[in-house]
């Protein structure tokens, strides 16, 4: 220690730790915390004195390079560094990027340093389209965002409109929505397990996942008429009553999938290669996850018990019994385990919905919001007028603005809606969980190998339709 720093006793937080680590008989140890730099001696603090978030900003996991820089090898921008780093473009056509995601990886040998997800290849301007569509048409637009969980997209849109309208739904409509949401969560998670399995070279898992998802999609087709992009949940309720015998179909689905989850366990959870490739890979702690606005399985795998179904209940989630699954380490394996066990919890919820489905209307009987029953149109002039007015003029929503969020399979799916009193939204903004969760990718990839990058990316589960909207 030089004279400028006679003692480190006055600095809180350093002395104790240093004392604990002081090497016996090594009096010069304290010199190790000073480093010679160009600007003279600089004191080095302990790594623990920097918070994880400060470190994140300082390290800068994000490669700040224009998208086009590496496309043209002759460009000035592409000549980077005298060090042995290179830039590798992963995607947008790479099969492991789950769509059209492109990631620019800065590599040193086979180790990833910084990276930058490049998105927008699937941008279709849905927020702009929503401003031109009436509230009654809006669900057809938003359902196309996250094509693996269309029901949740429709739900958040419908909830935002209903919040602005100030209407309350009959219980059966709420419970039908909850049933469909949980079935959709199951199908989305098994689909994720399938693609994740394929990324980690388990083609059996890929076949299994698609097989299970198809059962759910077949039921959705029976209820809504379509396998994807259902337009089933609409402002004011749902589009149609559940078909006869739906209880048997749903029971068959959950019984089959529940037993097959055990197969997944056998196939992946206990498999040494899978564990080697996922355990300790891509670790993210809770502070960083919270600061990066991560939600859903990423946040829960980091050990934060945050599930909007439980913490800010919507629909009737406060009336059903289920557990919020959390991880401990926040690595790729935890994110896998969280999702797998969430399928089991969703099955629990679906069973309770089966038992307790209330009777009544599947939509509100407010002729300004939902169309009259088909039979009424034949016998009532008034019903015919209402039907005509609803589908030509739409719903008039009073002025105001609101933010509504639901827990989609990927995290917090939010909808910020501004109404100006007309029949279409003035502004509709969707907070896509995949879009925000992509920010977690550069810190997760930092220091990983390229092969791990595939596993990490898969565990983040981005759906590019929602990222780009």
């Amino acid at each position, binding site marked *: 220690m030089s004279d400028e720093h006679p003692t480190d006793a006055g600095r809180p937080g350093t002395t104790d730790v240093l004392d604990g680590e002081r090497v016996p008989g090594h009096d010069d140890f304290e010199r190790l915390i000073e480093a010679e730099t160009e600007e003279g001696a600089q004191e080095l603090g302990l790594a623990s004195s920097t918070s994880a*978030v400060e470190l*994140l*900003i300082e390290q*800068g996991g*994000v490669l*700040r390079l*224009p*998208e*086009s820089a590496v496309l043209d090898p002759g460009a000035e921008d592409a000549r980077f560094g005298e060090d042995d780093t290179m830039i590798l473009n992963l995607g947008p056509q790479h099969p492991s990027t789950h769509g059209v995601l492109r990631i620019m990886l800065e590599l040193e040998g086979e180790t990833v340093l910084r990276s930058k997800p490049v*998105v*927008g290849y699937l*941008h279709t*301007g849905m*927020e*702009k389209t929503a401003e*031109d569509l009436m509230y009654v048409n809006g669900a057809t637009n938003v359902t196309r965002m996250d094509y693996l969980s269309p029901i949740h997209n429709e739900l958040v849109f419908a909830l935002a409109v209903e*919040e*602005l*309208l*100030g*209407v309350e739904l009959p219980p059966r409509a709420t419970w039908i929505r909850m049933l469909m949401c949980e079935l959709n969560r199951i199908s989305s998670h098994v689909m994720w397990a399938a693609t994740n399995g394929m990324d980690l070279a388990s083609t059996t898992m890929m076949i299994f996942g698609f097989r299970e998802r198809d059962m759910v999609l077949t039921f959705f087709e029976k209820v809504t008429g379509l396998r994807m992009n259902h337009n089933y949940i609409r402002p004011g309720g749902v589009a149609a009553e559940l078909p006869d015998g739906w209880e048997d179909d749903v029971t068959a689905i959950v019984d089959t999938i529940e037993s097959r989850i055990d197969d997944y366990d056998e196939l992946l959870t206990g498999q040494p290669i899978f564990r080697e490739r996922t355990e300790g890979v891509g670790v993210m702690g809770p502070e960083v996850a*919270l*600061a*990066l*606005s*991560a*939600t859903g399985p990423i946040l829960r795998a980091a050990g*934060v018990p*945050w599930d909007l179904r439980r*913490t*800010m209940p919507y629909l009737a989630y406060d009336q059903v019994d289920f557990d919020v699954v959390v991880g401990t380490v926040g690595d790729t394996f935890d994110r896998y385990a969280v999702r797998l066990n969430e399928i089991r919890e969703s099955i629990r919820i679906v069973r309770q919905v089966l038992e307790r489905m209330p009777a009544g209307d599947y939509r509100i009987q*407010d002729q*300004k919001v939902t169309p009259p029953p088909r039979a009424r149109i034949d016998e009532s002039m008034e019903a015919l007028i209402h039907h005509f007015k609803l589908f030509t003029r739409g719903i008039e929503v*009073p*002025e*105001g*603005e*609101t*933010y509504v*969020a639901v827990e989609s399979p990927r995290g*917090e799916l*939010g909808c*910020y809606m*501004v109404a*100006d*009193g007309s029949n279409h939204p*003035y*502004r509709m*903004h969707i*907070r896509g969980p995949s*879009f*925000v969760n*992509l*920010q977690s990718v550069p810190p997760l990839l930092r220091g990983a190998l390229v092969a791990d990058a595939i596993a990490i990316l898969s565990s983040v589960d981005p759906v590019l339709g929602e990222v*780009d*909207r």
Partner: protein
Amino acid sequence: MSEQAPGAVVAPPAGHAPFTASIPGCEGVPVSSSRAQEVLHPNRERYIDVAAALRDAGFVTCADLCGVDYLRHMDRALPEGVARERFEVVVSLLNHADRKRVRLRVQVPADDAVCPTLFYVYPGAENMEREAYDLLGIRFEGHPDMTRILMPEDWEGHPLRKDYGVGRVPVQFKDAPGPR
């Protein structure tokens, strides 16, 4: 049908003191209530300080950030003391411990569409600010990477602006040959 009459002055409901009033650093910021959600209206100068104060008070996550162009709806309801401007930056903050949300609406004038960045308070706002810049042209000062994110890098205009011509702009393709 609705709790609030259209265009009514948005004041917090009587007997319900806004919880943000007790947070140090948020004094004097106009507060309103929209559908039982608390909304703060800081000006551009106080925006970052208010956000930092809220973060220190437990709002550790920036759940959402977006811009709104109010060009065709300038007569929207705003509490007293808020200067009416064309653009708004809307930030939704989340407190996990108390299970609360709070929303910030910052007015941004059209002739100087610049807003300080939230990146150093909430690193998670990075992509959302890039999106707001890309689609609405609101520039976030101090942002480490203020580039387009959804539209191509060489795109002209900001599509979510209300005066952006829909259907009148020919589709832009990179390096496409011109019309023959």
